[in-house]
């Protein structure tokens, strides 16, 4: 049982380049999320998905796009990378129970630098 798997672990981009961060989970969770973590700022939600084909914006969606074609996969696309997107990106999943107490399961993160 791998849990939440993110690739790549590290990446350096030049300004204006594009890339896709991959995320896959094998826990059959319906909810998936993308967060970014900046020093001293905690985790900020970029996008989330409540199921295949359904996505919505979080707190900081600008400069990013997502898709969810299957339950397992939730890739994050960066178009026209900017230095402000230098961050550590975490994908997470949860099984929503309707109680408001869904535990988030995180991947190990992707450290992205835009130079």
């Amino acid at each position, binding site marked *: 049982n791998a849990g*939440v798997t993110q690739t790549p672990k590290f990446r350096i981009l030049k300004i204006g380049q594009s890339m896709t961060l991959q995320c896959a989970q094998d826990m059959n969770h319906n*909810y998936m999320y993308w967060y970014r973590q900046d020093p*001293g*700022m*905690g*985790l*900020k*939600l970029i996008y*989330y998905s*409540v199921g295949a084909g359904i996505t*919505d914006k979080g707190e900081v969606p600008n400069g990013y796009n997502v898709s969810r074609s299957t339950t397992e996969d939730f890739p994050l696309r960066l178009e026209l990378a900017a230095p402000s997107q230098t961050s550590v990106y*975490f994908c*997470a999943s*949860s099984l*929503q129970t309707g*109680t*408001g*107490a*869904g*535990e*988030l*399961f*995180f*991947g*190990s*993160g992707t450290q992205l630098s835009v130079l």
Partner: protein
Amino acid sequence: QQQVKQSPQSLIVQKGGISIINCAYENTAFDYFPWYQQFPGKGPALLIAIRPDVSEKKEGRFTISFNKSAKQFSLHIMDSQPGDSATYFCAASEKKTSYDKVIFGPGTSLSVIP
């Protein structure tokens, strides 16, 4: 109003001592308060959580104290060990129509020295 405040930013505790991390919130719609623990190079993992109808929850050496009227909650780590050295995030969750909105505090870096 959606913010969760957390202090201190960093904490150094001697082995065997008590580590205390404090958090505060404003939004009374929050109804679930988890703490996540993050080791270097890893993603956060759920450590312990509490509902606002309970004033205290203990799991092993970890205890959450919750003060609903003050809108504050704290994590106490008793008999702190070097293996507890990590970043701790408090969070608050609000049930929305489509998902549970989780707001994270900025984190506390804990170092437990021998």
